[in-house]
């Protein structure tokens, strides 16, 4: 089973500069655990201590934000593409 994972610039330090890596898992949570085997430290940038998706990281399954699907429990299938984009945000405070 192969899931294509697109990695944003700021997280490419975990993938030796690769903008795309492959992984497997039947849910997003499993995929991130799988990626951690080969890209140590990456999971911590995506998942917080409580086991939830980090607030200012956007993860998409194909073209949908997984927050509108099942978050980390979102089921994946062979050929899916998962894209990670850090949120662009800020403010005056």
């Amino acid at each position, binding site marked *: 089973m192969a899931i294509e994972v697109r990695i944003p610039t700021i997280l490419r330090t975990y993938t030796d500069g690769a903008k795309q890596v492959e992984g497997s898992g039947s849910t997003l949570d499993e995929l991130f655990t799988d990626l951690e085997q080969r890209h140590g430290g990456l999971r911590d940038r995506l998942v917080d201590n409580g086991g939830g998706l980090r607030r200012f990281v956007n993860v998409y399954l194909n*073209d949908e934000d997984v927050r509108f699907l099942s978050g980390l429990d979102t089921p994946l299938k062979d050929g899916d593409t998962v894209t990670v984009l850090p949120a*662009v945000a*800020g403010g*005056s*405070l």
Partner: protein
Amino acid sequence: MLTIPRALYDKIVAHARADHPDEACGVLAGPAGSDRPERFIAMMNAELSPTFYRFDSAEQFRVWREMDDHDEEPVVIYHSHTATEAYPSRTDISYASEPGAHYVLVSTRDEDATEFRSYRIADGVVTEEPVTVVE
């Protein structure tokens, strides 16, 4: 140093003025690796707030995918401060996630004068840079 065409500078200022007192935000896309801002993309502020901004996640996906398809990157990420100075705040610094981008800050706190400044933000360090507007 940020080199920016007058037309794009004016569009950013107009967007900030139009959205005041909410913070305005957006991107200038340019060919990857060129450091040339060429295409103005106003983004929705999903927070609709006078003190915070966040790109809508679905819109960000579409825009980022489109840039990728055209071999472009976000050369400038801009947003406005509506009551404070045009300097990156603590949240601006902690959420800066595009290390190669110029972060442009516009302040609309003064009705008659707009402040427009540019910065590099990487690894939590802010460095102001000069802005050259090209006619």
